[in-house]
């Protein structure tokens, strides 16, 4: 065990995986010598060589396509897309092939690949470097989508993602990369995909989020708690397949729910959760489910980012409102 931030936890996961399984390879822009723009792959080029830690030309569709081909042919590729804002270039490969080859070939061909990419706002970055468009991927049958919220979660989930027989889009919250450290095992361990985590049990309001929203939610829940509102905090972790049952079950008990989504409002994961709560637990609801999300606008450049990016206050206010409804 040692103290790791999310970057070092991810690095440790990749190192473990590459040691254990010679079929694990990394590819992407600047993942080799440079160790990745966020240093997630640092040291792996020296350790495992350029054949397994592959610096590619600047070509996202090819990175995704190659990863698919590698996965079809026995490797477990982990592709890095430098920022989620550049992942749109991979969408045709991801939708048309990665997600479908198993079905297309009736299971003869499978695509055990991972596409890692940093996502999210809040680090005062350039345009296109703050995207949170996870719902583009969540709606695609055949893809899995995973978002870790802490260093240990990141390591355990990434290991599961790489070992998973299906293609996984692994979204790393840029803002959490170096936000805090926690104790993480140096050896490999896994956290199963597809299961939400109850971070804190509670009885008054269910608060759901994922990724970089979790630290904000923790703060808001604590503040609410100190005012006697007991929050049940759920980290969704895997957005697809979505463990909505965990959320629905919680809402059945609390009757109230706040969903915190970094992405703009429309057609996001929060909407889907609300739809499922509506379908399965409408009669338990004592108040409308509240979405705390970014507005339906382009992510502003840094000087306007605070209008877009959520904070603990707004979550806290929402919790209070729902509790008081």
């Amino acid at each position: 065990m040692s103290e790791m931030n999310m970057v070092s936890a991810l690095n440790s996961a990749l190192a473990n995986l590459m040691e254990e399984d010679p079929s694990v390879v990394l590819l992407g822009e600047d993942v080799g010598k440079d160790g990745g723009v966020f240093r997630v792959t640092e040291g792996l080029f020296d350790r495992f060589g350029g054949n397994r830690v592959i610096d590619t030309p600047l070509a996202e569709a090819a990175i995704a396509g190659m990863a698919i081909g590698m996965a079809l042919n026995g490797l477990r590729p982990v592709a890095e897309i430098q920022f989620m804002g550049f992942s749109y270039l991979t969408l045709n490969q991801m939708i048309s092939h990665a997600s479908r080859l198993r079905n297309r070939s009736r299971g003869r061909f499978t695509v055990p690949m991972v596409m890692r990419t940093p996502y999210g706002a809040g680090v005062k970055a350039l345009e296109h470097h703050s995207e949170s468009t996870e719902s583009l991927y969540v709606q695609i049958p055949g893809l899995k989508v995973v978002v870790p919220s802490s260093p240990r979660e990141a390591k355990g989930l990434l290991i599961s993602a790489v070992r998973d027989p299906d293609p996984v889009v692994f979204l790393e919250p840029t803002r959490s990369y170096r936000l805090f450290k926690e104790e993480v095992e140096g050896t490999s361990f896994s956290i199963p995909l597809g299961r939400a985590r109850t971070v804190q049990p509670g009885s008054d309001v269910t608060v759901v989020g994922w990724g970089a929203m979790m630290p904000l939610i923790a703060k808001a829940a604590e503040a609410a708690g100190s005012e006697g509102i007991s929050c049940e905090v759920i980290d969704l972790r895997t957005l697809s397949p979505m463990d909505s049952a965990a959320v629905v079950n919680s809402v059945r008990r609390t009757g109230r729910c706040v969903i915190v989504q970094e992405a703009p409002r429309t057609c996001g994961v929060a909407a889907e959760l609300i739809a499922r709560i509506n379908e399965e637990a409408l009669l338990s609801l004592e108040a409308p489910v509240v979405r705390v999300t970014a507005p339906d606008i382009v992510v502003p450049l840094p000087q306007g980012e605070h209008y877009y990016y959520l904070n603990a206050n707004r979550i806290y206010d929402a919790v209070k409102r729902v509790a008081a409804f």
Partner: protein
Amino acid sequence: MLTDDYDPHRGRMLKVLDQNGKVVEKALEPKLDDSVLERAYRTMVLSRAADEKAVILQRQGRLGAYPPNHGQEAASMGPAMALEEGDWLVWAFRELAGLLWKGLPLLNYYLYWMGNEEGSRYPPGLNITPASIPVASQMPISVGIAYASALRSENRVTLAFCGDGGTSEGDFHEAMNVSGVLRTPNVFVVQNNQWAISVPRSRQTAAPTIAQKACAYGLKGIQVDGNDLLAMYIATKEAAERARRGEGPTLIEAYTYRMGNHTTSDDARKYRLESEAKGWELRDPISRLKAYLISRGSLDDDREKQVWSDAREAVEKAVAEAEGFPPPALEDVFQYTYAEMPSELKTEMDRLRAELRDGDKG
């Protein structure tokens, strides 16, 4: 090296046979056993027969929209012949002859075009990827496949196809370029059949040849008479050997012609002169091979008739089998979404099963 002798910048096209089956460049004639040549001829004929049947089936409403292969048999089969056991073949959607050579059962082929996913459940061990409909999207995938083979030092080659239209897509470019940098053991064949639906080759790119695009990627490139089986074979053979030696990928332009409509939904008379196709009839790849075989004494009229009747019989058998094949069950359209069905999806499936009435089945 052929790629030197036929440097695309010098505008020479590789040919071995003329239309009378006469060898135009003796030094280039490959030494192929009669049995191999006979199998090649049989396979091309089978492809032609199966293809013609598919068009008929479509007209009869027994098969969906279908892209005819007529005239392009040598362009896909010559390259396939240059492969070895275990090599990969990544096709687009107009490479029937090559697939048959590699061993794909006709049943799979018909099932697929009849709209049943079981068609793409290829026999285990057969390294052919399923049809790839989004134009050129298979090219980057083929680079990854080749990379994986090379990483394990398997000495395998990945042969990938796309069309002249496909060369305009970003995927084509990214694949060629990455493959050049990583020196993956790929052979890329562009079936330049002069048309991409209604768009002629001249409007697809302002480059005079497709082969010369190789130079943008540091690849070897060569333009080959795509209706000349022997030329396609030797060009691919050389390229495959180069790839196997770790000397990088090659781009082969197969200069051929789409004799039919783009698909059975298309009517080529809207955009091209019928005389154009007429001219190409004289360059039919099957007739050319036949003339060569006859000139070698490896084929005669009787055997030729037999080849055709065998082919037609095989086709009828495959069609019957395909038409007798069960349509997918409800579970089938769900169960291959993930390795393990997520519980929410299972719930969706059960709900759908309950909701579907009997009359809803089709």
